[in-house]
């Protein structure tokens, strides 16, 4: 009962993904040295989100999975963010 119609990531692909991730990590560390004040966090989070997206897309295979998983993953993440934002309606406007 094997399902041989699924995508197999090559070793090379995994290696390339790592290189990209390491570069982004270096970029994050570098970006911190530029004093951007409040935007430092935003930039670091943006890069982290990008890295996370790459891990999910390639290492966790989401790019090659069925649509349902992709929709669920994105929806759940957006949902979490909306909970945080709703909490901040209180904290930002007290």
């Amino acid at each position: 009962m094997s399902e041989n119609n699924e995508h197999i990531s090559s070793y090379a692909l995994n290696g390339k993904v790592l290189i990209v991730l390491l570069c982004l990590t270096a970029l994050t560390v570098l970006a911190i040295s530029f004093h951007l004040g409040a935007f430092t966090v935003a930039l670091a989070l943006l890069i982290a989100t990008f890295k996370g997206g790459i891990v999910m897309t390639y290492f966790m295979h989401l790019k090659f999975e069925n649509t349902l998983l992709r929709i669920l993953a994105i929806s759940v993440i957006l949902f979490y963010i909306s909970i945080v934002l709703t909490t901040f309606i209180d904290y930002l406007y007290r």
Partner: protein
Amino acid sequence: MSNHISADTPSNYLTHKTGLLSWLTTTDHKRIGLLYLYTITIFFLTAAVLGLLMRIEKFAPGETIMTAQTYNAMFTIHGIIMIFVIVIPGLSAVFGNFFLPIMIGAKDVAFPRLNLFTWYIYITGASIALFSQFAYGHSPDAGWTFYVPYSAQSHSNMVLALMGAFVLGFASILTGLNFLVTMHRMRAPGMTWFKMPLFPWSLYATAWVQLLATPIIGITLLMVVAERVLKIGFFDPTLGGDPVLYQHLFWIYSHPAVYVMILPAMGVVTEIFPTFAQKPVFGYGAIAISSLAIALIGYFVWGHHMFVAGIGYNSRVFFSLLTFLVAIPSAIKVFNWLGTLYGGSIDLKPPLLYALGFISLFIIGGFSGLTQGALAANVHITDTDFVVAHFHYIVFGGMGFGFFAAIHYWYPKIWGKMYNFRWAYIGFGFIYVGFHTLYFPMFILGLMGMPRRYFDYLPRFQPLQEVSTIGAFILITGIIIMISNLVYHYYKGAVAPANPWHGVTLEWKIPSPPPHENFDEVPVITHPPYYFEKPFVDEGM
């Protein structure tokens, strides 16, 4: 399908293997549902007795049968058991487990062994919570809501109660996970999403809430443990923390949790109405989507528990608005239920009676929720008995009556026996009258200014407190009558046919009790779920 099933015809799930060990190691979703049923019943009666003792205490002002400290401990453990052990898991774990696979034409849930493991997690969590009463130290007394700073400082077995609730949360998460995968992957051939009956739909919406909301209370309870044990300070203003942050985190779970409680109950009555009107559900699509809408919108109303806690004005307006919005899909359901009954061939058997009781109590509870959702009114009634009345109407009247309706509806299918109808009607009468007598005065008491969680009160509150206590005794009498009817006829009841109510969903097409693997052949679905080819009209009336 043969209609003359008796205990010694083809083996069913009850006779498949016998002995205590076969039950404790079962992976059969039906047996697991019953394991939950039996344990929930015991815990329910325990918590109900605690409630009764509280009512006896409140019959008169001052110390009647217990000290103030004991009263605080009582309402704490009454709440913890009722909320985390009974109402949140109840319908999903008992009737969801038993009937979800059958109603979608599957042999079992997606992960049967995980299902059994989940029951053991549940027992462990409930035991840890109960143990907080008997361990060395005082019983926890911060309420089931564990508000800081008191929960972080109270000299009691708080950590045990917190950990009990934490462990119970895992059972909820895993049940939700199991049901989600089951519905996504194991529907019978031909059963598209919109051919799935509405009880499974309600379980689907519920499962998403169980899955995503529960982890938040998990981590929050751990944070309170960290406050107590490590003095971490997240919620302690003397260390820089914010106690209101605790309330946010707590209610981010605990509000959606009430939809975990009510959605399956709505699903149950949505199954009962078409059967006892012998016509399809009115507005099937609306009911399915409204379940999802309630689950989604319900995630964004939590601040309505915090209107007087000091949150910002914009926040209060936001949460009040969303609270009013979430009532809309619920109202849609009520209209659709009434539309289902309208013009149908009504048969007022016990399941329908409980379902109708559900509607009346749910409406009262729901309206009183809207009253509290209005910002100005909320200031007056927060932390009064008005709130206590509201949540008992909506939770006990909603989930509780949903549970009673479900047990009366599916009893013949589960055990292959039939209970006595007159006995059931009498039980219902006592329960319904007792319910209103017990809880309605609390609305008035609350408006008069009677605070909640107080064991003492001014003399002007006494008459209504007395009425309420009398109601408690009537209610518990009804519950005893109801349970003894069901237990007695388990042993002595007449053999029930496969389809005593002429229902049309899949569970009525298999024998009573069901065979071990539910279906001899995998069903192929061609009809919509409520297809009454030949509605049954009882000519005898």
